[in-house]
């Protein structure tokens, strides 16, 4: 017998995975440039190459908009669904790169940017992954790079964050992997499509689904799998925190959405997914209640993220087609308002101080009114007040929850929102309360003007999505 080593894939398959590939290769170029260029040029070249790579990847991804393609025998599906998530990852990565100018030492910056790009690659692979293997690999590529990035700051807390993230995330990966093993056992295939009619034992299949969801819920930092989030967010360097707050979630959400919408057998939908909605509900409350007493903005945004992801997952309750659109819409909105807030913090950071403590915001309304105004705007958006994308996103989620018969989620969402207003207003008050006793911090020129670009774009997007929410939603295609 002659082994037939004919690769059964053509250029179309490679074209389908071109966007993540381009990003991954851009990371290699960053490394090469880092080795060849003089020390002075490293920072800007790394960021520039990264941004260019991401933009190119985005353009390539858009080319495939009207040509959904099932590549590599079902391992990767390029289509509207994947492209939307890839787009979110790309945009989030670009904004994170904008904040990365002051990040890491000169001799580390190239590697750090490369790791960030590889992490984005992992998330983009998850966006299109349609087999258990690809989901696992995408997730690990995403996570492994983040473990390293978390530790890249000359602070003990950064290394602590890296260690915590590593141990807990690996444990969660273990659950995910075991769940995948059980799913493989129940279906005899690693393709997500095979989940639709499992031939073997219902219990095996269901427990597989459960452990699979545990792994992804960890990445989505839904309570009670959220415990790592505040510590890691606080300890990790600022650009990394910003990056992971969106990119990890986009990747994991893509996997969850594909699993919930396209993979599961129709008849078992409701029963299998109920725990997911419960977890989302708990997250809305835990996230917002936890945010109440925080005095570190990164930590506050971590709790905020827990709650926001609760809202996003709640949008998919009942797995209605509109719910998916709204979840994606809110993910996009969350990206802008969250990264906007992070960019503001970046602009406040100085030597040995990331500017994330509440004290850095004291009296900001008088020192830097524009910045304070924008921060207020982002916080209002996170709290879900009009006229922002956060407001409209919540309205849409409420609507879909009520429509699909998950009114209890809607009620919890409202309760959570009411609690969160308190938490966010603490910062607003700190910025505008003029009290004696807080040191008058000098006005400070940031290392780079790049974050300003991020802040401005995020603000425009948050406002724009708030005013014309359906402009993007109309073109959001459904999962295929």
């Amino acid at each position, binding site marked *: 017998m002659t082994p037939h080593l004919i690769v059964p894939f053509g250029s179309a398959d490679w074209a389908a995975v071109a966007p993540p590939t381009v990003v991954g290769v851009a990371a290699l170029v960053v490394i090469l440039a880092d080795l060849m260029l003089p020390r002075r040029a490293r920072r800007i070249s790394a960021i520039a190459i990264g941004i260019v790579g991401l933009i190119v990847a985005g353009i390539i991804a858009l080319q495939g908009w009207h040509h959904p393609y099932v590549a590599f025998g079902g391992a990767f599906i390029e289509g509207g669904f994947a492209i939307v998530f890839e787009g979110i990852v790309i945009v989030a990565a670009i904004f994170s790169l904008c904040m990365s100018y002051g990040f890491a030492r000169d001799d580390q910056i190239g590697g750090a940017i490369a790791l960030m790009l590889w992490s984005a690659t992992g998330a983009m692979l998850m966006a299109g992954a349609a087999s*258990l*293997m690809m989901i*696992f*690999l995408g997730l*690990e590529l995403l996570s*492994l790079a983040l*473990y*390293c990035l978390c*530790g890249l700051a000359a602070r*003990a*807390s950064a*290394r*602590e*964050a*890296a*260690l*915590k993230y*590593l*141990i807990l995330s*690996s*444990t969660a*990966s*273990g659950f995910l*992997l*075991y769940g*995948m*093993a*059980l799913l*493989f*056992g129940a279906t*005899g*295939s*690693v393709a997500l499509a095979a989940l639709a009619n499992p031939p073997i034992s219902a219990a095996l299949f269901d427990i597989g689904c459960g452990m699979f969801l545990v792994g992804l819920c960890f990445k989505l930092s839904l309570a009670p799998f959220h415990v790592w989030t*505040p*510590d890691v967010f*606080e*300890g990790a360097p600022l650009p990394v925190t910003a990056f992971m707050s969106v990119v990890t979630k986009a990747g994991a959400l893509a996997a969850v959405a594909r699993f919930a919408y396209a993979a599961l057998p129709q008849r078992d939908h409701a029963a299998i997914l109920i725990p997911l909605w419960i977890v989302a509900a708990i997250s809305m409350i835990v996230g917002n209640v936890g945010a109440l*007493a*925080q005095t570190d903005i990164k*930590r506050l945004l971590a709790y905020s993220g827990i709650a926001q992801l609760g809202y996003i997952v709640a949008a998919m309750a009942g797995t209605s087609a509109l719910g998916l659109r709204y979840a994606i819409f809110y993910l996009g909105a969350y990206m802008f308002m969250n990264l906007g807030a992070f960019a503001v913090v970046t602009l406040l950071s100085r030597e040995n101080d990331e500017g994330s403590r509440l004290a850095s915001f004291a009296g900001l309304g008088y020192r830097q009114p524009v910045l304070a105004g924008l921060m207020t705007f982002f916080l209002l958006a996170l709290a879900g007040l009009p006229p922002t994308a956060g407001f409209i996103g919540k309205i849409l989620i409420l609507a879909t929850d009520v429509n699909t018969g998950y009114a209890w989620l809607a009620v919890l969402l409202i309760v959570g929102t009411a609690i969160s207003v308190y938490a966010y207003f603490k910062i607003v008050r700190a910025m505008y309360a003029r009290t004696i006793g807080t040191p008058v911090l000098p006005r400070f020129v940031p290392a780079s003007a790049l974050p300003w670009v991020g802040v401005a774009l995020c603000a425009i997007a948050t406002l724009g999505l708030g005013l014309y929410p359906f402009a993007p939603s109309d073109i959001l295609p459904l999962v295929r």
Partner: protein
Amino acid sequence: MSVDVTNYIALSAVMFFIGVAGVIVRRNPLIVLMAIELMFNAANLALVAFARVWVNNAGHIFVFLVVTVAAAEAAIGLAIVVAVFRRAENVDVDEVAGLHG
């Protein structure tokens, strides 16, 4: 003459949860990492057994990839452990609790 596959799965489940218990109970970071390796290998055992059931070598490939990932994870994990504990008095994950609340 051959064994019920369910036994393999049960065996892998035992090993998996021994790993889980190790992560929670042990304080030495190196042993925690080893416990995580145990979890991964337990999943691998289940995958290999299921691959044999379905005669589908996708399970084998999966295991191979998991081994690769585990190698990468171990390398990074050990590097982080070294970074955290290199100058520490005690090598103990309980010492790493500066971030909380």
